[in-house]
């Protein structure tokens, strides 16, 4: 093997392998994103139970955000619970998410399932928290 003069077969194979590794690192994220968008993207409708005081500040069509400002979906329905003496109510949200074997994710890979506690804030700056009660998905394919 001579430097800068001749490449033999082994050198070429090594270079190809190295290029494959480098390409793997470079293109992993975009390829993963492409697969997610092509096969795993889903419409998520979920219901959060929260305090009635907080619920009064919701408006249908309004977006809610996580504490980092990432959208968690749009309010599509607001219900006050008569069973819980009007102290709590429910808000239904629609969002686009990802579904795989481990569950459903919205926003920046935030796991969502019944029992999950979510902290959120509204456009008005008001923040609150609630517990997810129902999660339904519908494939976007």
């Amino acid at each position, binding site marked *: 093997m001579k430097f800068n003069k001749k490449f033999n077969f082994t050198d070429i194979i*090594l270079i190809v392998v190295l290029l494959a590794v480098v390409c793997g690192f470079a293109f992993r994220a975009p390829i993963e994103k492409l697969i997610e968008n092509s096969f795993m993207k889903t419409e998520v409708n979920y219901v959060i139970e929260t305090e009635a005081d907080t619920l009064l500040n919701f408006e249908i069509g309004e977006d809610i955000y996580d504490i980092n400002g990432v959208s968690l979906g749009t309010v599509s329905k607001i219900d006050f619970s008569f069973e819980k003496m009007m102290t709590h109510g429910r808000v239904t949200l629609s969002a686009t998410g990802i579904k795989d074997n481990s569950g459903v994710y919205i926003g920046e890979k935030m796991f969502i399932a*019944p*029992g999950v506690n979510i902290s959120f804030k509204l456009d008005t700056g008001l923040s609150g928290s609630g517990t997810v*009660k129902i999660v339904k998905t519908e494939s976007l394919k």
Partner: protein
Amino acid sequence: MKINNNKIKFNVIDIIISAFFALAIISSLYLFTQNQGIFTNTHYNVEYTLEIQSVDQEIAFNISSGDTIYDSKSATKIGQVSNVYHRLNPDKTYHVMVNISANAENHNGYTTINGVLIDKGYLLNFRTPQFSSIGKCVELSIK
């Protein structure tokens, strides 16, 4: 690599191969010094029980046999549900006991499942694809 008049010359490929070997050695050392070596740990099957005292009836049955359990913080798999028992509380919530089977490791006398520490009395923030809660480990046995 070329040996010319008793002088050894390295080319770019040799340097790259050497770098790969060095990385492999460093990775191996890291693996073993972190006490996570595949040969140095004892693997065994365990069954543990998580108790959730008060689950809303609406979601209490979202967990069932065969579900994969994940640690909520790390999202690593920490077992599979083998049995679930529900008991209705007077306040209409459910007391839920979840039996989970897993392959565990011994780390300096502590039981871990994929790096998640588990022991009797520990509170575990866990989830399945359809359910999320905090459970108290009330039973841990080696199978």
